[in-house]
């Protein structure tokens, strides 16, 4: 899968279907120019952080935290080794952009990490790569070898006197490691169980040292922000929603894939880029920011622009930019049942409300889906989410609860129908047709 389409692209210009990923290709596209300019013009770390702040770049992993601000939290006077970590543990259902970034342009991530390391004074970094994408991990290691050989990574980078070592760490199947403190535990060779915060990683991170963690797409954007200038990047999106973003569109569309669009682009434009609804069927609902984001009904999402503010105002989250599209063949109870199973399966087990609560959420949605729901179940589900949210070390408990609340808020009638009639509002043969697995039946 390559990038299938773009509107005023910044990150994906010249990707060539993922084939032109090598150092020479990246350099031809203007790669490592930003890094070179920093050393030539003796741009100070403070100036650099100021520029990133001015650009309005926000974290692309889900939380949307301002990147420059995050970098500024790193203690300047700490001399005993700081770290830069890239989070490519891309396991949020619906999200598959970082895989394509590392496939199509791994050197942009490397350059972004080296620049970040210079800005915060880190001497060592790791890119934590999702366990299931072995080929991408190997490619990133190859790109690292190229960057080391060319003097962009390692000792005395480009003759500047600045040293930065960078390595790849391969995950092995745990959604929770996408949570930054669990990811750090995992690099330390432990179970991926999140840490209490505070202290935040900028104070106590990897091996107890100050650490900046950003998403793959965030690092990949850094060289482009510097090359085009903070103001131009800001203007490429809209106020408070700077720049472009990759959106992973999956589900019932004709061309599922990654699309780069300016933040603030209307959802119908993105849907059209993705080839429109599969089989010309009717849009029913959309999860706009990865499986943890509350679902939105068709009429709400169709009126949204794709940016942090608009999606937030509509009652959901832009998250990682994973757009899961569902048409009228979708049974919303079954959809939620599968998501609830996922969170139950992936809860790390550390906090009782999450470990037990996600089990109950799944068990109850499962019995509703299988015709054994009870009239009081919907209130029970709501009560359980209230008892999970805000009572756990990390956000997985909230991530498991928000889909339940969203599905119940907008599709309560379907759940009630299931409970009253012991079957689905959407007939099974209609549901089957939606998947197009057996092409002959479509």
């Amino acid at each position: 899968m390559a990038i299938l389409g773009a509107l005023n692209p910044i990150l994906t210009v010249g990707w060539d279907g993922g084939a032109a990923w090598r150092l020479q290709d990246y350099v031809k596209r203007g790669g490592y120019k930003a890094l070179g300019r920093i050393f030539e013009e003796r741009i100070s770390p403070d100036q650099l952080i100021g520029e990133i702040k001015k650009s309005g770049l926000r974290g692309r992993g889900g939380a949307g935290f301002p990147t420059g601000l995050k970098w500024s939290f790193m203690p300047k006077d700490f001399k005993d080794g700081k770290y830069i970590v890239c989070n490519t543990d891309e396991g949020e259902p619906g999200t598959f952009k970082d895989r394509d970034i590392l496939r199509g342009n791994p050197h942009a991530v490397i350059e972004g990490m080296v620049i970040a390391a210079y800005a915060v004074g880190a001497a060592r970094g790791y890119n934590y790569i999702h366990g299931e994408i072995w080929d991408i991990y190997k490619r990133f290691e190859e790109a690292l070898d190229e960057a080391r050989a060319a003097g962009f990574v390692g000792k005395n980078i480009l003759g500047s006197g600045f040293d930065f070592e960078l390595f790849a760490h391969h995950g092995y199947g745990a959604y929770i490691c996408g949570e930054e403190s669990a990811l750090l535990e995992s690099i330390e060779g432990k179970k991926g169980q999140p840490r209490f915060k505070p202290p935040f990683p900028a104070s106590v991170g990897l091996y107890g040292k100050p650490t900046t963690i950003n998403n793959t797409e965030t690092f990949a954007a850094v060289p482009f922000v510097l090359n085009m200038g903070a103001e131009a990047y800001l203007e490429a999106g809209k106020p408070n929603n700077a720049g472009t973003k990759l959106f992973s569109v999956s589900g019932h569309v004709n061309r599922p894939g990654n699309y780069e669009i300016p933040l603030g682009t209307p959802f119908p434009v993105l849907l059209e880029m993705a080839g429109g609804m599969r089989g010309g069927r009717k849009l029913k609902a959309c999860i706009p920011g990865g499986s943890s984001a509350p679902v939105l009904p068709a009429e709400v999402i169709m009126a949204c622009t794709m940016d942090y503010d608009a999606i937030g105002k509509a009652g959901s989250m832009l998250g990682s930019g994973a757009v899961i599209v569902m048409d009228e063949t979708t049974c919303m109870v079954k959809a939620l049942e599968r998501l609830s199973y996922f969170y139950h399966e992936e809860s790390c087990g550390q906090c009782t409300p999450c470990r037990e609560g996600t089990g109950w959420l799944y068990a109850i949605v499962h019995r509703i889906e299988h015709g054994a729901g009870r009239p009081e179940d919907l209130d029970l589900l709501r009560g359980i989410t209230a008892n999970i949210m805000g009572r756990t070390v990390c956000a997985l408990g909230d991530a498991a609860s928000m889909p339940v609340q969203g599905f119940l808020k907008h599709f309560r009638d379907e759940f009630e129908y299931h409970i009253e009639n012991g079957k689905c509002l959407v007939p099974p043969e209609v549901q089957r047709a939606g998947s197009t697995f057996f092409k002959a039946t479509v």
Partner: protein
Amino acid sequence: MLTKESIQKIDREIAKYPAGRKQSAVMAALAIAQEELGWLPSEAIEFVANYLDMPPIAAYEVASFYNMYDLKPVGRHKLTVCTNLPCMLSGGVDAAEYLKKKLGIGFNETTPDGRFTLKEGECMGACGDAPVMLVSNRRMCGGMRPDEIDKLLEELE
């Protein structure tokens, strides 16, 4: 316990981390051991732990926490099918059902000839290629409709 080649691979992983932080290589070392042995018997976990100067129980915690480690023997090819929502919308569950029928086994079972083990997977971060499956942790296959599944099964001896 492990071949010289595997040990060399583990040493290369250890070198990625600062001095005194050998434990950071445990995930990679367990993966390398599993690749050589086909699965992770407790002796292999203990060997890795000793090699990295960490308590065996700490290595076991890692091996039992992450989904891609196999603590029981599996077939020559492990097929992990993603059935999570985005894949489900494009036939992930149908693909799993098709495989179950074709192989005559359920999830977490191995064919009597020891050729295939079937697993249910969680999101592999490739939803645009749905239905998606992973072959023996290393090879990602997308667009797995009946023809493609048939082709893959034929290819895997």
